[in-house]
């Protein structure tokens, strides 16, 4: 039995031919690769078939030498079955040839090739409907992957043996045929979302070597602005509410008693959780979920990969850093998306050095307020520099054994409200279950310490540290208590020093040193508990020690710089 493969140029006939005949026909993704026909003898389910790969032809009429060759061959008697390979992504054009082939009154199988491309383009083709309309078998094919190849030859064998002829049809004039193809294609092809073109256009901009970064900056800026905006707007009423609740809860107890101190501690712990979760964490996670579902995060990873390599990580690890500026808790949680334990550890360690909203408040409240925005900007750049430096050192200590970035770039999608919210809720729940109890317990312990008036001892305990940083011994308490709630560091500092007018009680160098230390030292209790859960107790302790060391060195460096340049 002789089977002829015919199709329009670049429809993949030769690929199909090679799939069964081995690599014999020249192929290429441009028209007219096959000029002369190629023949091969192949075996399909025990039957020997003579297979001919005809040159690509848009039509059998007139045309190029290749088309005439094809027409001449098909006209000869010894072709038993015609397999018409059609580019399914351009069905209207492809059917033109199909209608011509139908008029030849030879057993015909229509193979719709590039079905993978079809689904990628969001097209849907009703193969059954098309088969009924044309009166010939229509089969899907992904010739490049060899999918559907066997089915096509089995079908060809079947119609060839049974001599199933297509329904008689009049030879149509070129224009009628053309209209008919367009009509038929329209009837059986439905256009879904055209993912590819839109996606490519978006990616042209969003992954652009210049605009891509500009847009990334803009997106991050808007993201943080929105989150902080919501936080600033929702936090004060929440704190007011809790002040009221705390007063109410304390009324049954004797003032200044141990019990009232404990209740106060527990209430403050609860309040801390709420004051972190509702104003900052929730908007952050919602925003992140939104960016994630749109499909932007992988683009961020793509853009930032080169930069992240400098600190021993790759693009995917950018997410913990972005999140870190809001709250370190989701930042550490998000390291879960990294595959290698080493990357998770490194990313978590570095993300805890990113100043969260609470620590940024200290920088703003001290440095920006008293020394101007330029100084605060300097602190910010200093932070990035330190993170990069620590990243380099750590990644040198932990040689990379990971293959690097491999990340699927998904199509852009319109996010659903339900999806974004349920994802945010899932992450908030982790915080509530894991970190909140720790906050409450820690708060109670601190209340106890407060009750027994251990401030003096605490200050004494951390005196070596505060002394070497050139800070007054009173800052010991806000530093230690700050582990519980970083956003209260500034308020507690004011309480400890007996004045919120820091200009009077601290020198410039002390303010900068304090801010530099707070920016890096020990993450808050909530972050510590998440670190422990994500990485284990030992890594948590390592990272804690690391942050203290980094904070200490940074504080000393700042102090030294001031000393050298005499600005203090």
């Amino acid at each position, binding site marked *: 039995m002789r089977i002829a493969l015919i199709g329009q140029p670049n429809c993949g006939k030769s690929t199909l031919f090679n799939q069964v005949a081995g690599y014999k026909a020249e192929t290429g993704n441009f028209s007219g690769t096959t000029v002369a026909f190629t023949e091969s003898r192949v075996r399909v389910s025990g039957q020997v078939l003579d297979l001919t790969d005809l040159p690509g032809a848009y039509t059998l009429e007139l045309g190029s030498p290749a088309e005439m060759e094809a027409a001449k061959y098909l006209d000869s008697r010894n072709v038993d079955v015609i397999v018409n390979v059609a580019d399914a992504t351009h069905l209207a054009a492809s059917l033109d040839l199909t209608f011509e082939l139908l008029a030849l009154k030879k057993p015909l199988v229509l193979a719709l090739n590039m079905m993978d491309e079809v689904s990628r383009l969001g097209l849907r083709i009703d193969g059954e409907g098309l088969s009924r309309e044309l009166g010939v078998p229509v089969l899907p094919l992904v010739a490049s992957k060899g999918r559907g190849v066997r089915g096509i030859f089995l079908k060809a064998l079947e119609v060839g043996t049974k001599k199933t002829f297509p329904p008689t049809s009049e030879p149509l004039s070129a224009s009628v045929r053309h209209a008919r193809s367009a009509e038929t294609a329209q009837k059986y092809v439905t256009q879904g979302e055209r993912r590819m073109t839109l996606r490519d256009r978006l990616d042209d901009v969003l992954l652009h070597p210049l605009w891509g970064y500009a847009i990334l900056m803009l997106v991050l800026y808007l993201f943080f602005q929105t989150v902080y905006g919501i936080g600033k707007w929702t936090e004060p009423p929440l704190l007011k509410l809790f002040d009221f609740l705390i007063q109410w809860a304390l009324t049954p107890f004797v003032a200044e008693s141990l019990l009232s101190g404990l209740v106060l501690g527990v209430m403050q712990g609860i309040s801390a959780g709420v004051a972190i979760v509702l104003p900052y964490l929730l908007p952050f996670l919602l925003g992140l979920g939104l960016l994630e579902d749109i499909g932007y995060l992988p683009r961020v990873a793509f853009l930032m*990969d*080169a930069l992240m390599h400098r600190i021993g990580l790759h693009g995917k690890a950018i997410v913990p850093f972005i999140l870190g500026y809001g709250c370190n808790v989701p930042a550490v949680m998000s390291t879960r998306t990294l595959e290698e334990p080493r990357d998770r550890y490194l990313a978590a360690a570095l993300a805890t050095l990113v100043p969260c909203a609470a620590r940024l408040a200290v920088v703003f409240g001290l440095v920006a307020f008293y020394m101007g925005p330029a100084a605060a900007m300097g602190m910010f750049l200093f932070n990035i520099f330190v993170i990069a430096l620590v990243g380099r050192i750590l990644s040198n200590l932990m040689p990379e054994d990971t293959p690097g970035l491999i990340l699927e770039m998904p199509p852009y999608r319109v996010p659903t409200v339900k999806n974004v919210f349920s994802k945010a809720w899932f992450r908030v729940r982790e915080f509530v279950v894991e970190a909140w109890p720790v906050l409450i317990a820690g708060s109670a312990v601190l209340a106890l310490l407060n009750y027994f008036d251990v401030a003096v001892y605490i200050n004494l305990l951390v005196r070596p540290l505060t002394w070497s940083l050139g800070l007054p011994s009173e800052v010991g308490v806000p530093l230690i208590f700050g582990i519980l709630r970083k956003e209260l560091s500034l308020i507690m500092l004011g309480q400890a020093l007996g004045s919120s007018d820091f200009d009077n009680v601290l020198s410039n160098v002390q303010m900068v040193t304090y801010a530099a230390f707070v920016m890096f030292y020990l993450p808050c209790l909530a972050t510590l508990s998440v670190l422990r859960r994500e990485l284990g107790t030992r890594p948590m302790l390592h990272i804690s020690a690391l942050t203290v060391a980094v904070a200490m060195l940074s504080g000393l460096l700042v102090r030294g710089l001031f000393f050298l340049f005499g600005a203090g």
Partner: protein
Amino acid sequence: MTLLEIPIGGKARLIKTSEGLRSKLRQYGLHIGDCIQVLRAAPLGGPLLVEVNGREVALGREVAAKMLVELECASR
């Protein structure tokens, strides 16, 4: 040659990678023998964006450097 040497827009067939990378790539639907088209490259030594089997995958340069390819890549 490696995938890194393929210009943007160029196509190549994956013929060999390291054992560890091969299984990793397989998770992303990238097999030996697949035709890979390079779509974009991020600046400053950033990753390549390639298309393979209708999917787009970002590959770090160090990954692409470990992927041996040949230029002969069949049309679809």
